[in-house]
């Protein structure tokens, strides 16, 4: 395996919520997350809505400052970067947002949207028009789209523009934050195929965030499963789909609908009871124990760390501790 491009260690992002005057409680959106993303790989992050996937992606890119922890880019802690190095990191690390309808400036033409980043960073792109047209072609758009405004495009086309904007910076690392969730199914496949093709072409390293397990499997070689601010399991996508170790992962994967009534009938579904806990008042010990069918007394006392139990397989569960 190649070297890690991004390494995250014990990353935390707490959002304060006011309780009384200056007294605060904290929403623990990301709470002690550690993992590596290797060069050239697309690392998938899955989990139910509100589990902290988007916050994790944005914190890694320093779009929001972390509360604690370390983020390493090529072995250097980006939290210790000076202004110049940070600017360079921001050029090298890009994001494609979830909602293409709000992530593009409606008052700018597509040309301005795409060229804005390289201009700000002083990147020599040769002829700007030629550069933008070449990028548009790479994402399946044409030259005549150059001076149009975002409202003249469909959702899928807008997301292609957002991807072209990210690629314009010649990035090494891109966070794809549910790039297809706002699009209809017919458009999703073409966008996903395009991202996959571009990843190969540009040798991109990425983090693909989604709550759609099939999409993450298609896009990623390794997958991390998140539950209420923590990564509970990491594994190769094929292995993870074959056998889930953490009870939450099992529950999540057993919810995948199978388009075969016979298989659906014979397959035993694991349904977890209740709702996820409040990220303000998390349960002591493992945060999944109130819903876990395999909860043991120790789960109520101590929170398990992510443990390596096999090559490329990590799980945070006392069953494997």
């Amino acid at each position: 395996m190649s070297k890690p491009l991004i390494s995250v260690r014990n990353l935390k992002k707490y959002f304060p919520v006011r309780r009384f005057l200056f007294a605060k409680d904290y929403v623990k959106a990301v709470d002690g997350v550690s993992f590596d993303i290797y060069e050239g790989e697309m690392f998938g992050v899955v989990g139910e809505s509100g589990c902290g996937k988007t916050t994790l992606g944005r914190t890694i890119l320093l779009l929001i400052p972390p509360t604690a922890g370390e983020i390493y880019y090529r072995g250097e802690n980006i939290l210790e970067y000076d202004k110049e190095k940070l600017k360079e990191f921001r050029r090298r690390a890009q994001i494609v947002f979830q909602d293409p309808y709000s992530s593009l400036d409606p008052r700018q033409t597509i040309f301005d949207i795409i060229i804005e980043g390289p201009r700000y960073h002083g990147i020599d792109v040769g002829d700007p028009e030629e550069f933008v047209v070449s990028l548009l072609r790479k994402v399946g758009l044409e030259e005549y789209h150059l001076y149009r405004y975002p409202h003249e495009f469909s959702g899928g086309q807008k997301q292609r523009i957002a991807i072209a904007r990210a690629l314009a910076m010649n990035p090494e690392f891109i966070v794809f934050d549910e790039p297809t969730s706002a699009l209809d199914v017919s458009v999703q496949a073409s966008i996903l195929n395009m991202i996959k093709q571009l990843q190969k072409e540009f040798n991109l390293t990425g983090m693909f965030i989604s709550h759609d397990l099939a999409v993450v499997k298609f896009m990623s070689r390794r997958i991390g499963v998140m539950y209420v601010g923590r990564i509970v399991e990491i594994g190769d996508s094929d292995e993870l789909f074959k056998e889930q170790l953490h009870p939450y992962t099992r529950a999540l994967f057993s919810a995948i609908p199978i388009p075969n009534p016979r298989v659906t009938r014979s397959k035993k579904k694991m349904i977890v009871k209740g709702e996820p806990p409040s990220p303000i008042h998390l349960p002591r010990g493992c945060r999944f124990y109130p819903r876990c069918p395999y909860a043991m007394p120790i789960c109520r006392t101590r929170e398990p760390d992510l443990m390596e139990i096999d090559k490329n397989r990590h799980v945070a569960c006392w069953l494997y501790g």
Partner: protein
Amino acid sequence: MLAIWVRGMERRIFDILPKKTFGIALIFSSVLFIFSTLLYLFTRTPNVVAIIVVSLITYTNTLTALFVWSEKLRRNSLPYIVLLIILVAVSVGMLVFEIYYLLARKFVAEIVEPGYATLGLLILLILGYFANQIVEKITPELYWRVGRFLGEDYINVVYVSAFAMIGPAIAFFGVTSLDPYMGFLTLLIAFMPIPGKIRNIRMYLRREEIAKTMEETIRKWLLSIPAIKDVPEIKVYSLGPLAFAEFRVMVSELIRDRLEVLGDSIRVPIVDMIGNLVGIHAYLSTTRDTQVLVGIPAEDSKVSSRLAGKCVVVRVDLSKLEVIGTERVELSDLKEEDEILRSLISKRLDVLCLREVDKKIKNYLDGWFIIPMQIESDTVDAAQKELIENLRKLIE
């Protein structure tokens, strides 16, 4: 604060809220009370009387915690209720007297040094806020609900001080005639914590009933762990909204080496679950004078190589190391390994014999303080003999 020590085959778990929490809460209450009294003597504004009352009220929650915390005091709770009634009665008396005084004197302004009064009330507001924050912060995280309970009365000081500042502040700009009217309103606001205190006094009358409910909750939870054979003694002392739990549990001799882990597994969830406990004293004793249940997965008379839906449960007298009965259990509707394990745990097994023990099963059984025992025998009869031999080695 946790202390565990071993005396023979007994382990005592002693987990209690640290003394400094009460000390600091009492210091804050005293500072607030003394400062507000001096401020009243210096400024003569009825607004400050309201603060004296709410400062006095801040003693009540700390006293409740202190009485239930102290081993001597909790055994005789009569002084607690007498003190609580006196504090509430004095507070109500002061408020009523001051209101009567204002009405009788037809709201004549007596305020002097309104600037100092405003400044003093601002200091009281800040003190109240810091008291709330510091008391909550120094309370250990496990007891965060008790910390909130201890800190909540200081919030009354904050909002009553904020309201009380209005009269003296207006008087500072020359309009002294409004001060008694604002004082009247502040005194009415200061009544707000009183119903809560009266509820606590009423709760005292139901303390036995509340304690019984908590005892049942704790007992039920303890007995959900198969290794705990009995809870011969359990006593919950309940005062107002707080409580203290003392209990003794009997566990089988088989897990004597894991008493510390078991203690930790008992301590944290009970404090966390009950929420209003200020501490627990638990005594864990091992006993050989008990029966243990051993599960052997078996199809007919043959021992299964792996965990199966059919199982023989053997009852063993641990003191004599004799089989005193067997029972066949069928879990035919359960297919998954984990489901079978969970079902066996619900049958309160102490030992599970398996020919192959993988790490996951071992961890799961360990987590429930069930001993995973690897056996080699093919038949149930031979397995029973092997089991007795293994048990003998285990306890000797």
